[in-house]
């Protein structure tokens, strides 16, 4: 049964990542990202809860940091270069689902730094 859980969770996480990618594909700039923040946040929220349960703690952390940025955006807070960091993050998320023990430490530190610079 635990294997069934891992299988289902892996499929769901990949679907959520694909969902974010699809939304980001429609974004040409930060304003587009702001407009899609609520939709993207639904996906980061799901990954945040599920990833640590399949031993992808770093992916859970990255989702949690992005989730936090998106919630700030939804409260009309802004920052520069957010679309770029989201695009990089989604690529890193995909790699972490393909390669075991893929190191997300660098991107997590970068996103954490950006998160603290999101301002009103």
């Amino acid at each position, binding site marked *: 049964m635990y294997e069934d859980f891992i299988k289902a969770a892996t499929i769901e996480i990949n679907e959520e990542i694909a969902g974010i990618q699809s939304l980001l594909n429609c974004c040409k700039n930060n304003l587009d990202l702001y407009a899609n923040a609520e939709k993207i946040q639904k996906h980061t929220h799901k990954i945040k809860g*599920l990833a640590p349960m399949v031993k992808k703690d770093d992916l859970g952390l990255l989702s949690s940091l992005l989730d936090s940025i998106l919630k700030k955006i939804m409260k009309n807070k802004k920052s520069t270069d957010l679309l770029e960091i989201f695009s990089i993050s989604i690529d890193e998320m995909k790699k972490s689902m393909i390669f075991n023990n893929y190191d997300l430490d660098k991107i997590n530190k970068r996103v954490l730094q950006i998160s603290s610079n999101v301002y009103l």
Partner: protein
Amino acid sequence: MFIYEYFYYDIFVTIRMANILIGDDSSAIRIILKEILMMDGHNVVGEGKDGDETIVLYCELRPDLLLLDLTMPKKDGLAVIREIISKHPEAKIILITASDDQEYIQHCLDSGALSSISKPFSFKNVLKVVSKILAK
């Protein structure tokens, strides 16, 4: 709820085997919750994949307990709690959520949910909270 009592090495044991409904849009979460609950002898009577379905199943099945995700399609957890509690004020509902929005969680508790479990959750914590709420 079926209460089963027996002696085990001179210890009097009471097992409350409850009928439990799960409301979560994640099939993975439903699979693992079902496994955890069944391990403890409970009976999972239904699985709602969104807010509307969870309300319909609750009214049909009248379970002893509802484990409810906060963020679901069609109706979110808070709306589900309000609707179920308005129809069945005695309902026992435990929230399962990845949200860190304490204000929102408190709204849900004020609306009738009895406890909350954070995602990611451990088997031990789920069983501890379920057992505590069933004993109320």
